């Protein structure tokens, strides 16, 4: 990371994008204290999460505010049953038994995986494992969810389901989302902000629609959704007033065209 200055507000849905190795994961690890406490190396500057200086507070405290979901759920799950996995961190922090039960129930419910409660985590599909990983974090009642390419090993259907759940965590439960992900076509319509990182620096930061309208982001390794490419080309060939804003999903685009047709 180089000269990173950043402020993220409560309730934002932030997508981190950029080529592999650009610093997305490093940035995410700064928010739950894995950096500077767990990883070697030197951190200059200061990171504050929910008012806590990450240098002064250990990861087990910070992770109650900002929970991380990694790329490979197998690295995150280890208990014998789904329920035990979701309860693990709370048990470790000596929460009272009743409260653990209540929070586990609630987390399983939010993720829609109550029926998996007694299953072994070894029996689950990749998508189910990622949902359990998220549930175990939700049980901590974090304000922020950090996700590091959570869908990369999932098939498209499971990926879409997981992303839909993440979107509803933001919209219904007001959890701040910071997600590094290559499948932008599924995320951008719902993201309030995209931060593009290149070589450790933040090179672009703003509303996804505006960023994609104004800048060529492909050189930064950002995959522009095909629909946006169609729209950009259409704007060049047709009168701009026909497409007053840039749709980010097929549905938004089809809506605009339907309106012309009705006119």
């Amino acid at each position, binding site marked *: 990371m180089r000269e990173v200055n950043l402020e993220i507000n409560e309730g934002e849905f932030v997508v981190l994008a950029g080529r592999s190795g650009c610093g997305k994961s490093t940035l995410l690890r700064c928010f739950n204290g894995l950096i500077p406490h767990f990883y070697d190396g030197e951190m200059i500057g200061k990171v504050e999460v929910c008012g806590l200086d990450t240098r002064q507070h250990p990861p087990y405290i910070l992770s109650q505010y900002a929970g991380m979901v990694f790329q490979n759920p197998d690295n995150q799950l280890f208990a014998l049953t789904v329920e035990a996995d979701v309860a693990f961190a709370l048990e470790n922090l000596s929460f009272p038994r009743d409260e653990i039960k209540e929070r586990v129930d609630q987390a399983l419910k939010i993720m829609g995986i109550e029926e998996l409660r007694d299953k072994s985590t070894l029996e689950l599909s990749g998508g189910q494992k990622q949902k359990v990983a998220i549930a175990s974090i939700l049980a901590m009642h974090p304000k922020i969810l950090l996700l590091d390419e959570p869908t990369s090993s999932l098939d498209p259907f*499971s990926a879409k389901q997981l992303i839909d759940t993440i979107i509803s965590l933001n919209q219904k439960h007001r959890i701040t989302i910071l997600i590094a992900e290559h499948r932008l076509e599924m995320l951008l319509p719902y993201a309030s902000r995209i931060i593009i990182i290149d070589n450790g620096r933040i090179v672009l930061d703003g509303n996804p629609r505006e960023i994609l309208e104004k800048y060529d982001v492909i050189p930064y390794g950002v995959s522009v959704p095909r629909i946006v490419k169609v729209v950009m080309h259409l704007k060049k060939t047709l009168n701009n007033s026909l497409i007053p804003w840039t749709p980010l999903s097929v549905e938004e685009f089809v809506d605009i065209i339907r309106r012309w047709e009705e006119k």
Partner: protein
Amino acid sequence: MIIFENVEYVYPNGFKALNRINLEVNSGEVVALMGENGAGKTTLLKHLNGLLKPTSGRVLIDGVDTRHSTVASLSRKVGIVFQNAEDMFFSPTIQEEIAFALNNFHFPGDVIRKRVDWALKFMELEEYREKSPFLLSGGEKKRLALAIILAWSPDIVALDEPTVGQDILQKEKMIQIIRQANQQGKTIIISSHDVEFIAELKPRIILMSKGRIVRDGPSEEVLTDISILQECRLLPPQIVSLTSKLDFLGLKPKLARPEEVANEIARRVRHLVNYS
């Protein structure tokens, strides 16, 4: 040529991963195996070099029945790049990693040096040749795994989920590499559920679900058949999903470049606007 004849494969725990697979792949073809996690794609790939032998039926690689051959001898013909590239690495340096198989296949020393240099250059890894393979980034590890295989130049190159964790620039590079290898006459078999990547590459597609082949045809046909894709828990490429929803403009689901689709929409819209 690759032939699967009535192949079934049952794992020791009783799970039937392949169910009556009949398949022919000609030399020089580019084929993608697509389907959800657990459809049987990787199990099928592992039959190509004899890592797995059919429980019933047979697999012929250029006429050789894999049941009567060893992985070592089949590997001379078939190279598999696994999803987790790191599983393939164990040498202290990248150049030794590439040279390992060549040594094992008893290539002469000067040929080994030339092949290693060529592979490092082709995969843009020259600057790291003395480094440990484990120090590479995810994308570079994938390229190294491919370099190892291409160095001994097997006729058939199989890639298991080559785009997982890769950014768009690395995916474009992967497409170039696959096309180049194919132009050199190699048969390429890819397992993938990355529909946008496959839509760009446009190979012959074999759609798998629950151990069976449910569809086999050109990309233009398979990727525009939205209902069969959904049955296999795949989503259509965004362009196909767009064109399928613009039926009211007279568009049909199709696989095309964004510019072509934009031009077609523009034509139809001008038509509409002129009328109003």
